[in-house]
């Protein structure tokens, strides 16, 4: 819902008369304009997928990683301004290693999400800093099992069992809600995530895209890693098939 915030939208330290901070909302628009990013929590782990829009035919496949490992057990998928995302990932890595140095164990995902959210929020408090123009889906697997968090440019962070940000987030959320996540394993989850991303990709507006996926599950020994090649290919094939079947109707 867009409204003109004339006069009240020049600084992140200004509230509008109806209690909104427009700069943060504009930052969120940057996220909405980027490729879709999805995360789901299955019964044995988490799966994250990114619709990486290819801006140039000369780009090497596999470059411009959008999913980064933040520690052994967790990773982040970034939507929005990529350079802002790199800052957040660097900060998260630093928080994670710091925690482990001090407390001797891997940082609980909840704690990491809180720290990342704190950091993002920090940049909405000063007029000489601009808010981050990216949303982050943080997924990890620790003692409390697999968890998924979404951190928005406003600094809000909630825990989800299915989340989507970016261009196709509305359509993606609808698709995710249809899935029975509590009974799904990550292997099946990979196929579903691929299907959803292919489905919400808008062929008309954006031509090519590359699918990037990662998981942290029992099968990957609770480590966050790129989905193995064969499984990725399998998922892409299944997704393309599902698309064709849909078009054939």
């Amino acid at each position, binding site marked *: 819902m867009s409204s003109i915030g004339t006069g009240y939208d020049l600084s992140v330290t200004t509230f509008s008369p109806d209690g909104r901070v427009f700069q943060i909302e504009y930052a969120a628009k940057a996220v909405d304009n980027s490729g879709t990013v999805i995360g789901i929590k299955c019964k044995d782990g988490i799966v994250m997928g990114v619709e990486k829009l290819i801006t140039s035919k000369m780009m090497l496949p596999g470059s411009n990683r959008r999913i980064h*490992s933040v520690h052994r057990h967790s990773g982040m998928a970034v939507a929005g301004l990529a350079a802002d995302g790199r800052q957040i990932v660097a900060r998260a890595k630093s928080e994670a*290693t710091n925690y482990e140095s001090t407390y001797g164990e891997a940082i609980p995902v909840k704690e990491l999400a809180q720290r990342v959210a704190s950091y993002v929020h920090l940049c909405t408090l000063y007029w000489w800093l601009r808010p981050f123009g990216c949303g982050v889906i943080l997924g990890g697997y620790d003692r409390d099992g697999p968890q998924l968090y979404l951190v928005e440019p406003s600094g809000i962070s909630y825990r989800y069992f299915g989340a989507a940000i970016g261009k196709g987030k509305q359509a993606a959320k609808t698709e995710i809600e249809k899935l029975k996540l509590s009974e799904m394993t990550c292997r099946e989850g990979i196929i579903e995530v691929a299907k959803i991303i292919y489905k919400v990709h808008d062929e008309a507006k954006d031509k090519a895209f590359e699918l990037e996926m990662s998981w942290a599950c029992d099968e990957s020994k609770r480590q966050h*890693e790129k989905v193995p090649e064969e499984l990725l290919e399998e998922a892409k094939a299944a997704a393309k098939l599902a698309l064709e079947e849909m078009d054939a109707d």
Partner: protein
Amino acid sequence: MEQKPFSRGLLSSEADSQRTLYPYVTGTSVVALKYKDGILMAADMGGSYGSTLRYKTVERMKSIGKHSLLGASGELSDFQEILRYLDELILYDNMWDDGNSLGPKEVHSYLTRVMYNRRNKFNPLWNSLVLGGVKNGQKYLGMVSMIGVNFEDDHVATGFGNHLARPILREEWHENLSFEDGVKLLEKCMRVLLYRDRSAVNKLQIAKITDEGVTVSQPYSLKTFWGFSAFSNPTAGAEGSW
């Protein structure tokens, strides 16, 4: 490790309390050699507190990443600190997730830098490190001392092993030792060390690293022989002595 401002200087008494002056809990020799499929390394499980053999289940060999094995003698707390540095190094390497991983040569180089730079600040990590590993079929075995001296060789030893084990290795090591022969050779060196090194403990582990990964054996003891005739009646030559 804080450094006081320059006005105090590196050798002043206040800075003294923060520099390593003596080792406290130490491990003794580590011996390693290259064999047909990779590297074999042996170290006993003792941690001495001066002349007391205080800790007898200390693992002085640890695997680093996928391709390397690190054995250390000297101050055990410094060894643990080095393991923490390496843990972070390997973690960041893994997080790139780009199919590449640090091999033994790279880890050896990193350790050399760390040890040498600490030595330059007069605050050494009091260890002699043995780094062995295999990456893409290439075997690598190297050593770094606490002052940063580093080299690569087919067989290395630290501490007393330098004096007692290396001569044996020079005589009997050859290219393409089988696993059994390599273990026998290492045990021969460790047995001599057990007899002659006061800080040696008869509980050792042998670790092997090949292209497939690292295996550290369960602790075991070497058979020793003390039935020499001179030991049967030790006071024969001088009544009243022991």
